[in-house]
């Protein structure tokens, strides 16, 4: 039984995007997720364009003792801190820091974790055992303690913080990737690929990973959120980004002493952290919902 066929035409391959389009379509339906996305986009814009509007040395870290501890006013939207620095400018600049650290950490953890998880999941057996036991060692330690230990050993500063944050997250990515791969590798289309002699590398890259991307991406957005929180936490206890860099966590820490009379110094960084983390969580949840029921098909 043949259906209507047309004479041979060369159709350009454009359709690859349609899967992304349908995921986007599902995502769009989720109002909360879209809200989160909107906020995140605003944050990114702020991070990107703040460099054009603010001069780092004068406005962000430049001290002005005459203007210290002023409450929010038309001149200083968020007030000034104990060094006379405009809090608003510092919060804005802090967006850069937080997003950069979040992105970089996740990128590093995701790529390393994916390689480890992919190898462990695909080959199984001893490879799996060895790799996963190493991952277990890292997982056994509470994330914060591990991060503190690493930074404590290497010293504070942005690079070491990044390293500490990434190392904590590699095992979690590795696990997710590994279980995705285990569930996919038993499927018949993988057998089909093997039946024509496809080599392992191609199977992993072409057949397995594209199907495993879903949970990985969701995990990535959620990890960005926890990273921002984690860095803020480290900075709060003095082990993170050093002064005078306006990282939100360290701003919070510095505001501890002024908490009684200048509560705004704590409120603004706190709210900034909350907004960033919330938006990423909403996006992550929205992505998970958009990807999951569709993948069931």
């Amino acid at each position, binding site marked *: 039984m043949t*259906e*209507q066929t047309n004479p041979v035409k060369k*159709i350009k*391959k454009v359709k690859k995007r349609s*899967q992304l389009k349908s995921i986007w379509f599902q995502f769009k339906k989720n109002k909360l997720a879209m809200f989160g996305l909107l906020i995140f986009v605003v944050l990114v814009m702020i991070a990107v364009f703040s460099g054009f509007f603010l001069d780092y040395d004068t406005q962000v870290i430049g001290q002005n003792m005459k203007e210290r501890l002023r409450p929010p006013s038309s001149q200083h939207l968020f007030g000034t801190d104990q060094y006379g620095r405009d809090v608003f400018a510092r919060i804005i600049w802090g967006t850069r820091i937080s997003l950069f650290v979040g992105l970089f950490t996740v990128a590093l953890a995701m790529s390393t974790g994916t390689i480890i998880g992919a190898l462990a999941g695909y080959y199984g057996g001893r490879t799996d055992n060895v790799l996963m036991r190493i991952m277990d060692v890292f997982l056994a330690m509470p994330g914060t303690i591990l991060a503190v230990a690493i930074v404590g050993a290497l010293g504070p500063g942005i690079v070491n913080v990044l390293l500490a944050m990434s190392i904590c997250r590699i095992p979690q990515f590795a696990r997710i990737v590994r279980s995705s791969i285990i569930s996919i590798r038993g*499927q*018949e*289309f993988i057998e*089909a690929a093997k039946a024509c*002699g496809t080599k392992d590398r191609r199977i992993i890259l072409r057949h397995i990973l594209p199907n495993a991307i879903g949970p990985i991406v969701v995990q990535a957005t959620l990890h960005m959120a926890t990273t921002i929180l984690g860095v803020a936490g480290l900075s709060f206890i003095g082990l993170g980004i050093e002064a005078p860099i306006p990282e939100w966590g360290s701003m919070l820490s510095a505001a501890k002493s002024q908490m009684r009379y200048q509560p705004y110094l704590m409120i603004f960084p706190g709210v900034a952290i909350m907004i960033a983390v919330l938006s990423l969580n909403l996006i992550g949840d929205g992505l998970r919902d958009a990807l999951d029921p569709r993948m069931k098909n």
Partner: protein
Amino acid sequence: MHAVDGVNFAVEKGKTLGVVGESGCGKSTLGRLVIRLLEATEGKVLYSGENILSYSDEKMLEMRKKMQIIFQDPYASLNPRMTVSEIIAEPIKVCRTLTKPDDILEKVYELMETVGLADRFVNTYPHELDGGRRQRIGIARALALDPEFIVCDEPVSALDVSIQAQVLNLLMDLQEERGLTYMFITHNLSVVKHISSEIVVMYLGQCVESAQSDELFEDPKHPYTNALLSAIPVPNLSRRNKRREVIRGEVTSPINPKPGCRFAARCPYAKPECTAADIPLKEISKGHFVSCILY
């Protein structure tokens, strides 16, 4: 665990060997062993006289072009992230039988036409199509390397009755046009009779009977074959209200089986000799083999 144990059979070029049995009988495993998707622990697989189990990896790669497989599940056997044309083109790209993208695309269109898939589906994803069309994609993929031998692992079991008929007709047409040899694995006796010239009946990894298709149905010998035949519900009223021998019990475990016939636990004719030692396949008439102490 003994998935497949001491199975002997042969398929002639251009014919279809039906492999029949219920779950746990090892028929799917057998199919995969024959094309070396699974590695056998013992035995030989002779293709045109040569034992492919001893082939090196390079030689096996060449061999794979001649031996292909169609899977049962039209949902799980296709990569959900690849379009129809990508799925069909994949074997060609892997084995490099064609390298120019235009040539590959042309071959894809050709294959789609052969299996009855309209052109417009070339860039759709599997989940957008129904089971029958997906199975056609699987068939097109199996044909992509111009094989001589195809293992069909329950290719129509997951399809609706009218689609089953369409796909079976397609498989039979292809066999005629291209001189293909099939190993057709199924649990559905009426389907296997329709498409096979010869049939092997399996139970718990053992071959219990094999014969020409017509002969097996007219003159079944092994008690299990008889049980299977009497268990199939027939779509007419001839057997209504007749007391039938319904076989009792469940399939026993394939782990550490006792020697001898594995059907003995459920067989109405079982004797102690049945589990004393392994029972070889005996040729009781031309081309008709049975493994049972009754013969």
